[in-house]
């Protein structure tokens, strides 16, 4: 970092007009709806029970038949989903490998919102100064931190030597208003045509900007999603999350990018065309997944979203189970809130077919898929305990483990990641995904019951650097 520079402080007024009202979560608001649907279900069951003797099926055979059908359907959907993702990801990589893009170096503002990140913010800014790009500035937005984050970032304000040029670092201190308002403050202050939004605890790889920005030469591209990787590996839980990010998140984004319909631009790294942000109405505070909400808004305006695997952001993953559940709880409820906010597009495919497809796929991944996974596991446990069919659960696990191993091997090879992560694929679905799916299902139930939700803060260690 450079020596002392003359710093100027200016009082500014930040407008929040573009932020919607706080999402309301009145408790038990939907209890009547739940009770009514439960009553209707009960009536349907009574009708089935009354009419069943009139058919050739007995209750036992009906249960067996429906269970077999449900399992076959589940397997079919599972295979379709996996091979569909792999196929699209393969097509995207083919296209990506052979496509040549000319150099494109517009001015970019890197917006870094921080809240109580005193341990990690310096490493994040250092990684930004090491970017292999010559035309950018850094805007750090302090969202009313209560620790020494303000002092830490004000020391960084000024001109600093970057890899290719001088980089200006500006700081905006504002009262606490949430991540969305912090990002909006930085975006509004920026005069650049392109903005990169990241998390205050993330570290970018050196060629992130250069790789991501070149896609904006196509006028239809409104945003580019980056590749998020786990920085703090080496522990059981973080290694499983590393595999999840590579296989579950990045591979899916790769497949979506083939259709230019990436459904979530990750918070740790997202590059946006400012005009697309303006059309979408910037970040909103009415959901707890502002990144998902913004992505859906951009897609709804007709913009396309690409994925750049070489624009990498390293982030700290939760190391304890409680922290992991907190994170996934927020993600699940935030995504469901975003889907509900855009639900009109789900039933109107003529407005934007791509957006409708994205919403339905998000609905499936958030609600249906976890429930199916849990139901299948419960069935095999029941079959083993009640009827002694223990070998069924072995074959079920073996089949899924084989599928996960194949996918993990492919994903790790494509991303040139650590081969040791493939071994985790054996227990990935049975242990890790089951925990996550249970958390997702419980979160979904809470969301539909309208139980209040609050922002939390994950504890950061700040002991690692991506460089």
């Amino acid at each position: 970092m450079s020596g002392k520079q003359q710093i100027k402080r200016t009082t500014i007024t930040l407008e929040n007009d573009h932020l919607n009202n706080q999402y309301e979560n009145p408790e038990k608001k939907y209890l009547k709806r739940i009770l009514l649907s439960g009553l209707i279900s009960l009536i349907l069951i009574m009708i089935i029970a009354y009419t069943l003797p009139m058919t050739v099926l007995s209750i036992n055979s009906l249960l067996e038949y429906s269970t077999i059908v449900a399992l076959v359907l589940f397997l079919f959907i599972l295979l379709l989903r996996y091979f569909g993702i792999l196929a699209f990801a393969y097509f995207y990589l083919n296209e990506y490998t052979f496509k040549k893009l000319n150099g494109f170096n517009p001015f970019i503002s890197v917006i870094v919102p921080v809240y109580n990140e005193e341990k990690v913010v310096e490493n994040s800014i250092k990684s930004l100064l090491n970017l292999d790009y010559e035309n950018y500035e850094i805007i750090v937005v302090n969202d009313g931190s209560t620790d020494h984050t303000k002092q830490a970032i004000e020391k960084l304000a000024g001109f600093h030597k970057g890899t290719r040029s001088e980089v200006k670092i500006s700081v905006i201190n504002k009262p606490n208003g949430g991540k969305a308002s912090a990002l909006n403050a930085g975006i509004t202050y920026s005069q650049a045509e392109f903005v990169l939004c990241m998390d205050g605890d993330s570290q970018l790889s050196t060629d992130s900007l250069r790789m991501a920005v070149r896609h904006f030469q196509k006028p239809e591209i409104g945003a580019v999603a980056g590749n998020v990787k786990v920085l703090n590996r080496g522990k059981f839980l973080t290694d499983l999350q590393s595999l999840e990010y590579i296989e579950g998140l990045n591979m899916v984004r790769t497949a979506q990018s083939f259709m230019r319909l990436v459904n979530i631009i990750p918070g740790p790294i997202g590059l946006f065309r400012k005009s697309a942000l303006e059309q979408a109405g910037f970040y909103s505070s009415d959901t707890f997944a502002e990144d998902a909400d913004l992505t859906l808004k951009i897609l709804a305006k007709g913009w396309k979203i690409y994925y750049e695997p070489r624009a990498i952001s390293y982030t700290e993953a939760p190391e304890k189970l409680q922290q992991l559940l907190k994170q996934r709880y927020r993600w699940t409820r935030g995504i469901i809130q975003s889907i509900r906010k855009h639900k009109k597009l789900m039933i109107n495919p003529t407005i934007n077919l791509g957006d409708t497809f994205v919403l339905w796929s998000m609905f499936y991944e958030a609600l249906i898929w976890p429930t199916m996974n849990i139901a299948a596991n419960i069935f095999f446990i029941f079959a083993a305990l009640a009827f002694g069919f223990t070998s069924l659960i072995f074959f079920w696990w073996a089949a899924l483990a084989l599928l996960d191993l194949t996918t993990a091997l492919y994903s790790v090879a494509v991303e040139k990641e650590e081969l040791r992560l493939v071994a985790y694929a054996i227990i990935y679905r049975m242990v890790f995904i089951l925990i996550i799916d249970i958390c997702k299902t419980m979160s979904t139930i809470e969301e539909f019951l309208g139980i209040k939700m609050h922002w939390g803060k994950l504890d950061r260690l700040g002991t690692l650097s991506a460089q």
Partner: protein
Amino acid sequence: MELIPILSTIILVATISTFLLAIGAYILFKVRERRGEKYFVQNPANVQGELVTPEDNLSPRDVFKENKPSQYPKRKALYVEDFTSNQKREPKPVTPTEPREYVTQKLHSTLKKEAANFESVTSDVKADENKFLKYTREGYIPTSKDKSGEELKWR
């Protein structure tokens, strides 16, 4: 010794344990969340903030100009490349029978589109655009509006 029954038992026990662990951890998470600190997000219409910038408060455009010597040649090359690639994409080649004003207008509109994408380039872009406009007493005018008759529009 049969391996499958043993492995089946292990997997069964692991799955049941995972279920119990997940439900227990979730309940614990909810209990801790209710006890823990809560952050309420408030969004007033306007908030006062503080901007901390270096004293030499160059705008991004000025910063860009600082780097102009390394940036400018690249941008010019991009213009030339794009124009060349645009020409290659055009099925109709420019023939001597095409009126010169059509050629200049096509060039002008192509460059104008590219200039719109590079808003941060200031006078350099305008200088390029002005190359294909005729300067008169009224200022720069497109060649189509030039009323100087049949003579050559530009050289």
